[in-house]
């Protein structure tokens, strides 16, 4: 995976462009269908957003003046970056025992897909996505509240 350009913005278009560039890098992928493509693209978008959030948090912890383009600052405040990383961690724990629900969250939250788009990407009925999304949100919310209340937890707090 090539290193990222510094200071890129993460408006939707830029994110899609970035995901596209990474997809093109994966020239050996043998695409099965549109759903397969959407699934891989969503995973890459999650990766890009998480990488970016880590950089924003590092810049914040490093102190000093951050030089971020104005539009980037809007979409990506340090607080938003921290919560995105917490969601990412909790989601990895969910994936350990329910991979499909974790995928639904990846598609809906990290890739911004609608219920119908996520259903297509997973090859399931939209009602399945609605149920998975509902239970996954409940589990993640509870998990994140528990982590936040647990001083010895692995979630890094900076407030």
């Amino acid at each position, binding site marked *: 995976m090539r290193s990222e350009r510094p200071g890129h913005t*993460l*408006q*939707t278009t830029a*994110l899609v462009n970035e995901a596209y560039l990474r997809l093109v890098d994966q020239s050996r992928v043998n695409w099965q269908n549109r759903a397969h493509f959407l699934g891989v693209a969503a995973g890459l*978008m999650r990766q890009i*957003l998480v990488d970016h959030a880590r950089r924003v948090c590092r810049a914040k912890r490093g102190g000093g003046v951050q030089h971020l383009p*104005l*539009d980037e*600052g*809007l*979409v*990506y405040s340090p607080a*938003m970056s921290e919560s*995105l990383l917490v*969601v990412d961690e909790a989601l990895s724990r969910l994936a*350990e*025992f*329910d991979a499909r629900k974790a995928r639904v*969250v990846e598609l*809906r*939250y*990290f*890739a*911004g897909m609608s219920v119908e788009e996520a259903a297509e990407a997973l090859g399931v009925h939209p009602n399945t996505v609605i*149920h998975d999304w*509902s*239970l996954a*949100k*409940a*589990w*993640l*919310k*509870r998990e994140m*509240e528990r982590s936040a209340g647990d001083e010895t937890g692995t979630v890094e707090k900076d407030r």
Partner: protein
Amino acid sequence: MKPELWKKIDEMFAAAQAQPAEERAAFLDRACGGDQELRGEVESLLRARGSADSFLEHSPAVASADQPALKAGAKLAPSRLWSA
């Protein structure tokens, strides 16, 4: 999370959500039998779900007008306006 327990939670959560809110407790009494672990899990997840309506609904992938860029009172560094 044990897979057998999670499978039961998954089914019971869906069944309970299909009930009117005021009938869920009675439904869980009947449906969970004496399984206190299952009942506790489903109840706490239903509670978490109840406060999670807006949770994760704003994808970071979508830059939207309802994610205000600058909040009132935000301080901006001194800036220079260049002619267009």
